[in-house]
């Protein structure tokens, strides 16, 4: 969907309250499809402390409305979704409140009753749906089961309906007789979507339906959702941590933090004038990569521990606008400016001036916290350091045996480029475009099928493709890696001290005592202070952002000349991504390290990189100065990638 489409969509849907009065009217006149009041969900596991994952949540969802639910992971979005669907499993249960669907209370209904009621009116697709199609049944048969169970259609009529559903999600009819394993992840999610729609539901709940799929594929699926929703008029609750996309698609947005809704607002209003500091923080992680100066903010810290009692505002510890009252009084979700917001400061700022206490912060639409800025000059600065890594006509072919036949995949096809000292080169491309394969060859994990990789470091020139196990260990003094997923790249069974001292002892030959001291310094470098409080912890005691810092500290331990960072922020919440980017940036300027930054996200490439290489199907399709490539993409594929970047702000500017 282009931005203009999204705008019209938002403008034509009746239920968008564009002003306070209209909002009030809509609410009074049409009775809500889903009415949730004071809903709380508690998890009471036997082995760990109980927590309230959803806390007194109230909202209405109108017929035909498209509502987005955003918030960092762990904020309770999925738990709320499961509660709405009556699919909570032990040890979770609804501990308070009501859920009315079309006037009937479904929270207290038994599973048996639910089955007999009109629950087929509600359908859902979530991330793990990808693997939920029955692997031994043809796709059509699975549709047939679902349709025959809930409707009068039989025989050819069903086939006709399936055909119709397939065309709705734009999948060729010939795949009706396919087995799930013959379909790609994107196709499976489309089919799940079609399956969800097969009985014309009135409410569809989508929980991260496209997470884990390719950006371009995500885009096309979500466009299909929005188009079908307009055509068929079902209501949608769309959960995603990809805030940009949610903002673009939704009529209204709910913002969730630590189990509570902190803001409810029309999408167009939220983009222009977010009220809650947390909403501002989430939105601050987006920016237009084409702009001269790109600014992204991040929210420091992490959400509160829900197993402990919290007094005052739950966001207070991370909030740059907090005032005294915030730490003692819990803010309520009260109407303000056409929406609702739970924040003392937002209400005071817009309230009568005589109520305003001293020291009330200025009204702002941006998150007043830490920020990462990249200007056009920064990008032009592109320092022409000397070349220290040359990749020359590198090709990698993977061979897989399938029975008697050998299957060949060309993962990287005749790629050449050079990396320079103290410079960041971004390698951009869809998943499967060969980025990781290239990274593995540069770091010596894999060998190229043909071509050469030359590294010129402090110890002369090394032919990387010829290294053997023992020499490889030495090579890694110079070349280190930051992994995509900090949850899997730190050993859960070892303390951070162990993790950090090992490379120091191996690569720098330090004694145990020296290594200990340097490990402390490394922790300080990545701003995990005081270091001795962190060193004896285990990875699971840290947040995602902190873990990624440790991973970066470990990469720095060897004093490398090149760091290969493979999607280092893609598994992190958007609210903390800029924090990690900023750290990487500091390394480049402060330590004169070259960075090969691998990503599928052009915004982060703009923020970090001096040069961009665009990779598609194993080939370099475009290469050049970062700002240049983003502003004047020459290749069609680069343009597709650029279009896939959600940009809620652009939409806001076109509307106004």
């Amino acid at each position, binding site marked *: 969907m282009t931005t203009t489409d999204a705008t019209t969509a938002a403008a034509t849907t009746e239920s968008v309250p564009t002003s306070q009065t209209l909002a009030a009217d809509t609410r009074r006149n049409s009775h809500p499809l889903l009415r949730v009041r004071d809903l709380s969900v508690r998890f009471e596991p036997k082995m760990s402390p109980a927590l309230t994952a959803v806390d007194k949540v109230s909202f209405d969802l109108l017929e035909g409305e498209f509502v987005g639910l955003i918030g960092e992971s762990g904020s309770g979005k999925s738990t709320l979704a499961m509660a709405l669907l009556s699919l909570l499993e032990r040890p979770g249960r609804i501990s308070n409140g009501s859920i009315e669907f079309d006037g009937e209370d479904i929270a207290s209904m038994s599973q048996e009753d639910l089955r007999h009621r009109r629950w*087929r009116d509600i359908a859902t697709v979530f991330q793990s749906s990808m693997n939920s199609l029955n692997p031994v049944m043809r796709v059509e048969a699975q549709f047939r089961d679902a349709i025959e169970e809930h409707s009068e259609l039989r025989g050819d009529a069903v086939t006709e309906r399936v055909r119709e559903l397939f065309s709705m999600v734009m999948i060729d009819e010939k795949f009706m007789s396919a087995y799930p394993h013959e379909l790609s992840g994107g196709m499976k999610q489309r089919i799940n979507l079609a399956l969800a729609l097969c009985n014309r539901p009135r409410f569809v709940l989508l929980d991260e339906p496209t997470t884990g799929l390719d950006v371009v594929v995500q885009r096309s699926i979500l466009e299909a959702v929005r188009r079908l929703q307009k055509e068929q008029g079902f209501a949608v609750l769309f959960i995603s941590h990809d805030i940009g996309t949610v903002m673009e698609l939704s009529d209204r947005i709910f913002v969730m933090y630590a189990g509570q809704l902190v803001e409810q607002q029309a999408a167009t209003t939220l983009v222009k004038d977010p009220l809650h500091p947390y909403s501002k923080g989430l939105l601050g992680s987006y920016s237009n990569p084409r702009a001269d100066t790109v600014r992204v903010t991040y929210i420091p810290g992490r959400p509160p521990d829900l197993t402990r009692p919290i007094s005052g505002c739950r966001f207070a510890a991370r909030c740059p606008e907090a005032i005294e009252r915030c730490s003692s009084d819990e803010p309520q979700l009260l109407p303000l400016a056409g929406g609702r917001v739970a924040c003392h400061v937002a209400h005071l700022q817009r309230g009568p001036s005589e109520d305003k206490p001293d020291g009330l912060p200025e009204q702002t639409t941006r998150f007043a916290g830490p920020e990462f800025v990249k200007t056009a000059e920064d990008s032009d600065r592109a320092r022409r350091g000397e070349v220290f890594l040359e990749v020359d006509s590198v090709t990698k072919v993977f061979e897989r045996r399938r029975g008697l036949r050998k299957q060949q995949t060309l993962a990287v096809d005749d790629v050449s480029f050079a990396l320079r000292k103290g410079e960041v080169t971004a390698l951009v491309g869809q998943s499967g475009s060969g980025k990781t394969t290239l990274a593995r060859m540069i770091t010596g994990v894999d060998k190229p099928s043909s071509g050469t990789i030359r590294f010129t470091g402090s110890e002369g020139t090394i032919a990387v493709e010829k290294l053997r196990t023992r020499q490889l260990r030495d090579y890694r003094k110079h070349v280190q890696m930051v992994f995509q997923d900090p949850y899997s790249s730190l050993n859960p069974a070892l303390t951070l001290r162990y993790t950090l001292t090992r490379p120091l002892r191996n690569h720098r030959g330090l004694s145990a005592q020296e290594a200990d001291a340097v490990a402390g310094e490394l922790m300080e470098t990545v701003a995990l202070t005081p270091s001795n409080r962190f060193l004896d912890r285990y990875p699971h005691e840290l947040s995602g952002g902190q873990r990624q810092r440790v991973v970066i500290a470990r990469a720095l331990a060897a004093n490398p000349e090149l760091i290969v960072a493979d999607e280092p922020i893609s598994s992190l919440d958007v609210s903390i991504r800029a924090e990690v980017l900023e750290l990487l940036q500091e390394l480049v300027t402060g330590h004169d390290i070259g960075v090969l930054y691998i990503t599928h996200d052009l915004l982060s490439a703009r923020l970090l990189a001096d040069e961009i290489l665009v990779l598609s199907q194993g080939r370099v399709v475009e290469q050049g100065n970062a700002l240049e490539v983003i502003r004047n993409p020459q290749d069609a594929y680069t343009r597709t990638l650029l279009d896939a970047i959600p940009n809620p702000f652009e939409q806001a500017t076109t509307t106004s």
Partner: protein
Amino acid sequence: MTAGIVQTGSEERPGDATDERGEGDAGYSQQRWWQLLWSNTKARVGIILLLAFILIATFAPLIAPYEGTRSDFDALLPVSGDHLLGTTSQGADIFSQLVYGSRVSLLVGLFGGLVSTAIALVIGMWSGYKEGTVIDDILSFITNVAIVVPVLPLMIVLIAYSEVRGIPLIVFVIGITSWAGHARAKRSQIITLRNRDFVTAAKFAGEGSGRIIFREIMPSMTSLVAAGFVGASTGAIGAEAGLSFLGLGDPNSISWGTMLYQADSQGAVGQGLWAWVLAPGLILALLITSLTFINFGVDLLSNPHLREDS
């Protein structure tokens, strides 16, 4: 589709890309494994039984009325207050033999299990970690040979040809003949773990293979290793009883196997001396059952899907 909802999701709780692997998992294995074990009824029964056996073995001199090796009573005395289970045809007190016999079984279980597990770990882990290399080919070949060689005849031959008989010999023989199956299991387990990011990261940190296998990977397999050890102990206890029953045990000490051997060679069944035959057999079965129960619990640790809780 049980609730009549058009629900196209799996049984799993949906989650973000990031939150599934969240805080909990690692915490489980570090702090709460014993709680988990204890929460399982079977495992709890197993642990209590095993503790009872260990107490009996430790305090055997206090519990048993006589020395286990003493055989100067009248032969074949009936059950009485002096001889709770009567005496054997050589004039030994069956109850005392039973009590002292637990020492041999537990010792063999412990050390046989340790030796076998250690060999299995070194060979299996190393070969799995080096999968596809010559090292793996060689180690896998040795493992496969060890698997196909019939174990019992091999044990018998080894013991028959050795000069000294005794518990250490039995432990040694059991250890070197029973590791292969576990080695193969460890090999396939490590193959699934060795491509984890943290293993690659350890290579980047300059770690050698030995350290990677035993410091980085093995801690993630603790429950699997523990299950292997309990299994190997169970096997060793059974093997000792079997060997002793065949008359290949330590002639100078009393074990349940040698009791059975004597009972059998004296024709106890024919004479209807049930206490003599049944007592050691039942008690052996009880010990093996307790270990099997413990292994149910250990399985829970490595396989969260089996937990009663979630």
